[in-house]
């Protein structure tokens, strides 16, 4: 029992932590009060059992208190309400710390073997015109280990007892008992009928198993049964724990009513993809991919293009440099400054927001309030950070833009071919000048085959250069596509990380909190 109770109490305390800020504030505060009260009570004298006599005015609580304690400490009277301040009788020594905690000023010590360890409280009424009495009763009923409700034939069916106390305490059947006092006013048959009616009302309150004792404090009839009940509870020394256990379970049940039904569906694949796509768009990923493609073509053209026109290319800026994106990035290397990518537009923000909310709604599944809202709030709480985080993700991505080795060869070849063409051209020019000067055949012109060498050099060099440039361009097109594909994959990984960090992780944490709270509440003994 005690170990189970410890576990439940711990679970409730943890549940309070998790539920704070998530579930209804009032229910959480009540549960917290229960854990605090349990802590306080467990730290005090557990050898003593606190029993409170509570009931409407005029049912004979004070007389019962006097009779049980064998004293005349409590004032008994006709004028209603009689008792305005609680008082305590302690059987045996001790109980002082408890009395301080209970804040009861009037204390008496009684020596009685059988009931040693009993701390009996006589409470004021809760139904008279004196509202202060009711507040005092509310306070002490909350703290007592066992509450004995005393009623009499006129007052046993009052709403003030059943609706304000018994029904809300229907989980506390183990920590309460009902005494039907002044049975001497009724005939035998009426007493039996009365008792049945009380049991019926108690069952209606949700307390079918509560002990019901019939007695008369005036004649002393039936008092032994009450003494026996008290002696049993005092001897067992479990009343305090039983009471606190009922409190813990009730608090857990209240929390679990606020917890709501339903199961989360978890994050849906399609939602996650939509989110990543929105993130990519917002981060300018398509743009970067295009830049990678263009940069490769641009650099390829510079390296392998036809030398006579490729200088024109230099007039255009390098697409990647313009965005201030590095070709390669080391994992974990310090981030360079901001990229020159434009920040996400309102539309892109809106698309990210819509995708985040869609993901949250899908993940919440058929959870009842307040969870859909909580999950949503988790999904959108980092909205402000999206732009900056995306820029870092994109700027930090390894675009894996490499320079192919064949570019050097092709470049060299282009240069050779260009040189050949230039040589051919110069040769022809020299030949032309010589022929204009009518000094032919000073320099012999080799003619392997039928074409003269300078013509071959010029035409061949130009044609081969253009052909090579064309082939290189085709190859660079293929390379650009491959590289942009790689860059896309690498960017996607980075953007996924950002989406994970900003949206998916918070959502998953919220779902975990849900699951954890569900488990804790079940462990704390919530009845569902």
């Amino acid at each position, binding site marked *: 029992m005690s170990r189970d109770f410890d576990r439940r109490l711990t679970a409730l305390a943890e549940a309070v932590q998790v539920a704070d800020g998530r579930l209804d504030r009032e229910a959480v505060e009540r549960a917290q009060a229960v854990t605090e009260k349990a802590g306080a009570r467990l730290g005090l004298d557990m050898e003593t059992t606190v029993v409170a006599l509570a009931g*409407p*005015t*005029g*049912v004979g609580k004070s007389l019962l208190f006097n009779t049980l304690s064998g004293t005349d400490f409590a004032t008994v*009277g*006709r*004028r*209603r*309400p009689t008792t305005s301040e609680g008082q305590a009788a302690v059987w045996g020594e001790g109980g002082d710390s408890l009395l301080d905690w209970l804040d009861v000023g009037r204390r008496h010590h009684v020596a009685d073997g059988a009931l040693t360890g009993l701390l009996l409280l006589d409470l004021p009424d809760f*139904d*008279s*015109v*004196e*509202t202060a009495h*009711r507040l005092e009763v509310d306070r002490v009923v909350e703290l007592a280990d066992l509450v004995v409700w005393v009623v*009499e*034939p*006129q*007052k*046993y*069916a*009052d*709403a*003030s007892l*059943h*609706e304000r106390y018994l029904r809300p305490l229907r989980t506390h059947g183990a920590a309460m008992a009902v005494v039907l006092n002044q049975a001497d006013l*009724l005939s035998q048959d*009426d007493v039996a*009928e*009365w008792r049945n*009616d009380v049991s019926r*009302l108690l069952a*209606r309150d949700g307390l079918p198993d509560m002990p019901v004792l019939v007695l008369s404090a005036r004649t002393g009839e039936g008092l032994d049964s009450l003494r026996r009940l008290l002696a049993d509870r005092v001897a067992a020394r479990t009343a305090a724990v039983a009471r606190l256990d009922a409190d813990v379970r009730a608090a857990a049940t209240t929390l679990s009513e606020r917890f709501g039904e339903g199961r989360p569906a978890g994050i849906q694949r399609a939602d996650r993809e939509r989110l990543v796509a929105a993130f990519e*768009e917002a981060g300018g990923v*398509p743009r970067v991919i295009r830049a990678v493609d263009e940069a490769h073509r641009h650099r390829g053209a510079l390296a392998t293009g036809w030398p006579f026109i490729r200088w024109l290319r230099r007039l255009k800026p390098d697409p990647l440099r313009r965005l201030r994106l590095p070709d390669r990035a080391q994992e974990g290397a310090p981030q360079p400054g901001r990229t*020159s990518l*434009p920040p996400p*537009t*309102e*539309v*892109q*923000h*809106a*698309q990210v*927001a*819509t995708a985040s*909310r869609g993901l949250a*709604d899908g993940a919440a599944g058929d959870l009842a*309030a307040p969870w859909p*809202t909580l999950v*949503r709030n988790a999904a*959108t709480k980092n909205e402000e950070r999206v732009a900056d985080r995306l820029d870092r993700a994109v700027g930090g991505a390894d675009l894996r833009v490499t320079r192919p080795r064949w570019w050097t060869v092709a470049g060299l070849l282009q240069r050779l071919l260009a040189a050949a063409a230039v040589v051919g051209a110069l040769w022809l020019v020299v030949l032309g000048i010589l022929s204009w000067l009518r000094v032919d055949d000073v320099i012999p012109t080799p003619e392997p085959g039928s074409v003269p060498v300078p013509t071959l050099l010029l035409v061949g060099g130009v044609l081969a250069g253009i052909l090579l440039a064309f082939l290189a361009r085709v190859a660079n097109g293929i390379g650009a596509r491959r590289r942009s594909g790689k860059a896309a994959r690498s960017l996607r990984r980075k953007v996924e990380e950002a989406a994970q960090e900003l949206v998916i992780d918070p959502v998953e944490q919220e779902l975990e909190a849900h699951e954890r709270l569900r488990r804790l509440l079940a462990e704390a003994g919530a009845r569902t």
Partner: protein
Amino acid sequence: MIPAMRPELSEAVGRLRDELSAVRLELEVPGAADARRTRNDLVAQADDYLLPRLSQMDAPVLMVVGGSTGAGKSTLVNSLVGSVVSPAGVLRPTTRAPVLVCHPDDLRWFDGDRILPHVPRETGGAAAPGTLRLVTHEALPAGLALLDAPDIDSVLAENRALANQLLTAADGWLFVTTALRYADAVPWEFLRAARDRGTAMSVVLNRVPADAEREVTSHMSEMMREQNLDADLLVVPEVALEDELIPREALAPVRRWLDGLAADAQARAELIRRTLTGALASLPARAGTVERAVADQLAAAAELRAEVDLAYAAARREVEDALRSGSLLRGEVLARWHDVVGTGDVMRALQSRIGTARDRLKSIITGKPGADEELRVAVEHRLEAVLRAAGERAAERVARAWQERVAGRALLEATPGLDRAGDRLRADTQEQVRAWQAFVMELVRREGEAKRTSARLASLGVNGAGLTVMLGVFASTGGLTGLELVVAGGTSALGQKVLEAIFGDQAVRELAAEARRELIDRADGILRADSARFDALIEGAATEAEGFARLHGAIDAVRRAS
């Protein structure tokens, strides 16, 4: 004979009753529950007592015997009549169906729905709980009826409600309490309410033990004095019952009181008049508390409404900013735009024209949308994303703000899904964007006809011109940055040049301005429709200012008439 009251009084009370029952007090502001209860009490009092009594002043006096459970109400009634007409017993609560005892000659006054129109009648032996059992008995003098009401404080909530209703309908109360109960809180609440309503009342202190008579009686008188309660205190000692009835001598004080009333028509008239005057006099004050509650509701409703307005105004600004900044133009829309009109880049334009022709052919063969249709879809998607995000954020903001207020919290809990944009937002947006596009096309066509430039318009096509105007809506305010400006400027420059050639520079600007105005109006309409969900909730819960004014007028009318 009792003088009839003025007819305008009856009319004023009837009007007040209608206005009271019409006001809505559903916002959970502090005191709303009390105000609802007061309102219901007032309506019930008007139906059950004031209106019937005002119309028939000569009906018999109805004395309601009320009090706590176990106080001996039924036994007292039985003893006064001299036979068991209402069952008594040890089990609480005993009386579940109230019993009305009257002289046979008076039955006609009670068996119709003159008083208590909403309580079913029963004349047979056993009555179902909640019905009024009518019993005639010769022992009771004519002109006086006794009603044994259920208890006011037992566990049966329906008993309590019925008791309250019956006490409201009474010409006078015979309030029964006991030596054990006389200091209970619940009966005193009723006694105070009766005092405030001006109900004529006698208090029976029942079951007083002989040894406690002096102490208890003097304490009770003291309490009545303290509470300003002007009523007879009739003391019945605790005695053994004879055949379930209180012996004659013990009952003497009550019997004397009853006989005095029965013998004296003047006294009865006085009693009726006193209670009626008291009830009428208390009416404005009690209706005034309802009026104040209505005012509180109005204030709370205004606060809630202000939150809605604030959140949706922010959403409207968000949308407008997005429309103005040109951000709608970026990305996909721009790409689609290239497809439709081509770019400044000759090669690209060529490719694009070929592409467009190919697309057209494809769209004819496959039925897939052409490039301009795709552009429209792209614009639509963008607008929808902006509007939806704005709507969602606004709803969340309202929900958060409402959560901070008790009244708002109750509304949120009662209506799940309030913290997100309404279901209709999406469909509305699609519809409105389409309508806007049609509007722009129509605008361009009209403008074109007016200028008699259809030949040149044909070179661009109404669709192309319309799309150019649409993009002009987003682009002409500028706000584009860096490269975007170059690209967008270049692209729309071409289209815009053609347009300007067709319509003239000023006209194009006007076209774009008008199209933007129209779009913002439509976006406004969509958000308004979304925020209307909140307004409808508030409206359903709280009375509007008009109802408040009418209630105020009705209260004034009663005050003037009485």
